[in-house]
């Protein structure tokens, strides 16, 4: 809904904040942050396909970090979601 002039803008939703952060960190190579953001996004979205998309990205960044435990956890989730 467009905000009325004079009234304060509505607070951004968590999804909007996440989206903004994903864009912001996209080119930074900050794998830890990108992994965390995609994990959070996977929980937040309601569409299972979209969740699997974010899990995939979180998994890739966990691989880049070499975080074995995280990788294993994400692979379990991806397998359950039919992504692996």
């Amino acid at each position: 809904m467009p905000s009325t002039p004079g009234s304060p803008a509505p607070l951004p939703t968590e999804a909007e904040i996440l989206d903004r952060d994903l864009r912001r960190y996209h080119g930074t190579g900050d794998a830890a942050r990108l992994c965390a953001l995609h994990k959070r996004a996977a929980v937040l979205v309601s569409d299972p396909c979209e969740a699997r998309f974010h899990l995939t990205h979180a998994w890739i960044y966990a691989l880049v970090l070499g975080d074995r435990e995280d990788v294993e956890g994400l692979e379990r989730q991806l397998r359950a979601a039919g992504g692996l």
Partner: protein
Amino acid sequence: MLDTAELSKLLEQVDQPVAGASGLPNALYATPDALALERERIFKNGWACIGFGKDVPNPGDARPIDFLGMPLLLLRDPDGAIKVFENVCRHRGMILVEEPKNFGGVIRCPYHSWCYSLDGALRATPHVGGPGINRTETIDPTQTGLTEVSCGVFMDVVFVNVSGTAMPFETWIAPLRNRLSDFADQPLFAPTSHGSFTLDVQANWKLIMENNCESYHLPWVHPGLNSYSRLEDHYCFEAENFSGQGTLVYNPDLRFPNFEGLPSKWDMSAEYPSVYPNVFFSVHRDHFWAAHLDPKAHDRTVERVEIYYATEEAATSDHFAPLREKNAAQWKEILSEDIFVTQGMQKGRGAPGFDGGKFSPEMDSPTHAFHAWVARALAN
């Protein structure tokens, strides 16, 4: 254009006994085609130097290398072993690594994010089966890893055989290992300062090798060096894949700790084998250096020198820092003194009447050995 029929005829005159042999023909120095031919027959088919183990000191370190236009990735694996891969993604051929860096996990291709383990295995193919589906029937990860390049390390110098068709590395390096057996398995310490320098030479790579093979030029080109290393005090040696010269009066002012357990012959000797095609070694009782020649064009070569010491203290302590600085500066000065001759010979190769030159059987034999080796490699 390189006239290959004419070239084969000329190469036959090179691979003759030294007294009657001609030098390599002008065309092999003065045309880009020549480097293209050498790239295939010498640098790809045989063993050649691409760098140093010290370039990737820690597990996970990776360094991209442009080896005559072939993108390679020099890598130290988690167990500390050196590996070399083609630096290209197996998906769409994107360059994988553009800058030296350490990989704690996988190597991710920046294009579609296929990921490779440090052993080269294909580890992940995101969205390859559609959004969020990370596998597909038609791509077998066990067959789609990075292309590994045969490599070997000797005294921290890294060699590759890109074609994979050369003899095993240990067989190839055996004559040099034998010649330098007193040094071959010594621990080498890379300096924390004043350990390397680079020279950008406007000359064909072979001219730098040739000049390093012989001591004939010392009294004229390196008068300072000659004061403690007279022509009479030098000797030559030749083997199937290297040749060079040694001195019997190595006695520099700079004193570093010696390598352990050296026979007494090294008290006053030093040796300088030029290892074909593109690296020369320089061993002394207290330090070692190698010069890697990286041909950038038929008339341009980057010469990179890396120095190593016998003890950690010599290589890293502040106490030895001023001496290391002096030592590196001295070697840089000596190798810089050679530049006007290698560049001068490069210019000379433009003379249509120059027929490759003549060799002195007494003084030029190691240079001729290199020429004959090049002639044989190109003839194959």
